[in-house]
């Protein structure tokens, strides 16, 4: 039996359809990646699965329990790391975990060991008595992951767990996440926009405008591309496109200022391209297909602009500033 099962899920906000009839299943003990651009409906889907909002129609089950009809059972079997942090910054890390343990009704005799283990797992034991407001972004994220595990959930939801972290903290947290299914016997449902993270997922679903447009293992998805990807920067994309069509009978796609084409033998293709286009070519790149290419091909846009994380940082700062004054 799949641990998560979603059937024809629809969520409307007034006239806006945030989630538009999606269905998927997640097998126990796997890492499931949910990819999509801003506003695709990822968080909305998680909110329905976590019983925080009701679906407009369709069904969602966690471990066989209906998210709408048995919210309490579902809540007990899931842990959540929300997109925006939900720690109490005026409490210490230890107190945040203690709070969680009590809130989820962990047996009194077990609370201490579980909190200690969780802190050790994310390597924050030495900083346990610091107020969370003194933590860095990466430490906060790790603490939230640890907190999500305290009550031993069957499924852990991670909504953009690594967003806005520097590469080192990201790698650190990513290490923690990938060892969880084995170590803690938990299924991971995560959203991310870092493609190298998506590559590690056992299964990926790509969602755009509320619809799942592709689903499968990273390798299966890459087959959609059908070969190596060559990206070209040229002086005149329009002219080059026509020229490529004429010379090689290949349709090159113009995406965000670069030309993309696929070929079974990418390395052999490059010299011919340069011979054909001459000094129109500014630069050439050859790539094995990545999930990002799949994404580009299916949605016509890169998964997310980097400055989005910048924006959410600014939002945090403004909030923090306002709070201080």
């Amino acid at each position, binding site marked *: 039996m799949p641990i998560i099962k979603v059937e024809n899920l629809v969520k409307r906000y007034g006239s806006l359809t945030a989630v538009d009839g999606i269905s998927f299943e997640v097998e126990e003990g796997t890492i499931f990646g949910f990819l999509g651009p801003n506003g695709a409906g990822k968080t909305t889907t998680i909110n329905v699965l976590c019983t*925080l909002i009701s679906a407009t129609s369709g069904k969602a089950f966690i471990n066989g329990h209906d998210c709408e009809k048995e919210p*309490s059972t579902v*809540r007990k079997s899931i842990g959540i790391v929300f997109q925006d942090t939900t720690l109490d910054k005026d409490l210490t890390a230890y107190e945040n975990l203690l*709070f969680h343990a009590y809130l989820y*009704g962990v047996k009194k005799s077990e609370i201490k060991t579980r909190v200690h283990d969780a802190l050790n797992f994310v390597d924050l034991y030495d900083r346990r008595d610091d107020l969370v407001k003194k933590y860095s972004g990466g430490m906060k994220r790790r603490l939230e992951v640890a907190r999500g595990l305290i009550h031993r959930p069957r499924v852990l939801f991670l909504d953009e767990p690594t967003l806005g972290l520097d590469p080192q903290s990201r790698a650190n947290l990513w290490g923690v996440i990938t060892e969880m299914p084995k170590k803690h016997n938990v299924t991971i449902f995560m959203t991310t926009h870092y493609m190298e993270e998506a590559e590690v997922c056992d299964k990926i679903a790509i969602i755009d405008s509320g619809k799942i447009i592709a689903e499968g293992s990273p390798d299966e998805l890459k087959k959609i591309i059908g070969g190596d990807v060559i990206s070209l920067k040229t002086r005149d994309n329009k002219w080059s496109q026509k020229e490529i069509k004429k010379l090689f009978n290949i349709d090159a796609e113009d995406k965000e200022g670069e030309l993309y084409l696929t070929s079974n033998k990418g390395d052999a293709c490059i010299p011919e391209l340069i011979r054909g286009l001459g000094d129109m070519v500014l630069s050439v790149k050859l790539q094995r297909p990545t999930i990002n290419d799949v994404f580009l091909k299916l949605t016509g846009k890169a998964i997310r602009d980097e400055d989005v994380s910048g924006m959410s940082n600014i939002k945090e700062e403004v909030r923090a500033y306002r709070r201080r004054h």
Partner: protein
Amino acid sequence: MEFNAVYVLVAREFKKFVRERSRLVSAIARPLIWLFLVGAGMSRLVSPTGGVSYTQFIFPGILGMTILFSSIFSSISIIWDKEFGFFKEILAAPVSRLSIVIGKGLSGTVVSTIQAAIVLLLFPVLGLKLGLVQIIAVLIIAIAVSFCISTFGILLATFYENYESFSVIMNFIVMPMFFLSGAMYPVKLLPKPLALATKLNPLTYGVDAFKNVIFPAEEGPMSADFSLATDMTVILILSFAFVVIAARLFERKK
């Protein structure tokens, strides 16, 4: 209802209360200012007939004010928690909304009652004579009033999503509640419309209950306006109503 959740919500509030010195200091300073600056000044103007001086008269009101501010402040912190995300941690837990309301209500009750107890220590300074039974009665009333006002605060907090609303709540709800509670002047001396507003204010009954216990023998204009039984009945019924409504409002999913 989940007692573990109720317990941990109260424990969190208590921890923060003890940690935030400024909150404690202002909680103690405010009543002192009112008693000794406003009260002492006003008693030059107002010299009531009967055995109760003006400074003594406002003492129950100052107890009420202490409870009002700290209970509302405690409950309104829900708006902060919403703004900073922590409330989601609570809402996503396998815990009934009733437990959350009760837990939050008792959080306010604990910190308010502690502060009211500290203010109560001033009674000898004001020349009041209270017996042990009176002191215990005042504390019991303080618990009931604190719970009532805290749950009222939770109800308020369900209507606001961000803390810009804080000053709105303070200026348009809390301050009028204080002035229209019989804290500064007897309800029976107010003009009709004001008297009506005062009777609709939950705090009025708390202040009046304190007056009943602190000035049991007083019969002049400074005496209590309602019977102690009326006061307590109103407070308990309102508390119950606030809890039920707030739990309902939290239950609503979008």
